[in-house]
């Protein structure tokens, strides 16, 4: 639990960057069961008024969870998610050629003795795609089931 006490509101705690390709969206669609064609097919995306195929908002949110879990492991925080929220402000557009990049930056919003709330900025192609994401990590609770 000591690692939590080293965190201060306003601290920038990590940045992460992930490349996203169409194949990643296909794999995510299979894993999540969300087969909305705007995430898989250009024609369907354009018919819905989008510039091209877009990532599932939940895929982007999933990448944020990955960045947080990787940071927590590195920082030696024995912690799990207590709360996770975001608003999908702009789509992550994923062209067939070259894909997209999602850039994640996290700051401490509130620090407690056994929890920390992070404010997370997520950019793609220079636009804020999540506005913003927030994660509350809490010291690991025993699993009783």
């Amino acid at each position, binding site marked *: 639990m000591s690692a939590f006490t080293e965190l201060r509101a306003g601290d920038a705690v990590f940045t992460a960057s992930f490349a996203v390709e169409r194949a990643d969206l296909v794999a995510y669609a299979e894993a999540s069961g969300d087969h909305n064609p705007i995430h898989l097919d250009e024609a369907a995306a354009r018919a819905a008024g989008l510039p091209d195929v877009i990532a599932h908002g*939940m895929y982007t949110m999933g990448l944020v969870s990955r960045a947080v879990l990787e940071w927590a492991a590195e920082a030696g925080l024995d912690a799990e998610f207590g709360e996770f929220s975001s608003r999908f402000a702009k789509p992550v557009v994923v062209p067939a050629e070259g894909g997209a990049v999602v850039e994640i930056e996290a700051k401490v919003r509130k620090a407690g003795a056994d929890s920390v709330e992070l404010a997370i900025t997520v950019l793609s192609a220079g636009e804020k795609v999540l506005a913003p994401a927030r994660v509350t990590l809490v010291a690991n609770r025993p699993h009783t089931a």
Partner: protein
Amino acid sequence: MLNASYVGRSLPTTDPVTITAESVSRFARSLGLGETESVPPTYLISLTLPAADPLIEDPDFGLDFTKVLHREQRFVYHRGLRAGDRVSCTVTVESIKTVAGNDLLALRTDVTDDEGLAAEVWTTLFVAGGGA
């Protein structure tokens, strides 16, 4: 336009399903997460969205899923779930707001296991032209 009389209404609770190790590891892999028995933070969406299918299929509700974009998402976790846990979902229509001819539909799904409420999942959907 969505049928506002559904606000406050809950769908029948789904039959309990076992969270399989295979589905957890496939979900984790698709996000580049390491091998884990703990359910990844966003995994529950794979249970809560299908739980809302009866609402999408209900002609009286009037939801055209081809006009839907995901607007907001929030998870509150009361305890960590693991592969092997059995859970049920109860979807409630929390609110419907019409803004500039579009609808914002907020759903809350209670995810329960043998011990009670394990997580709450809020999903807000933007429904284009729903109010036109």
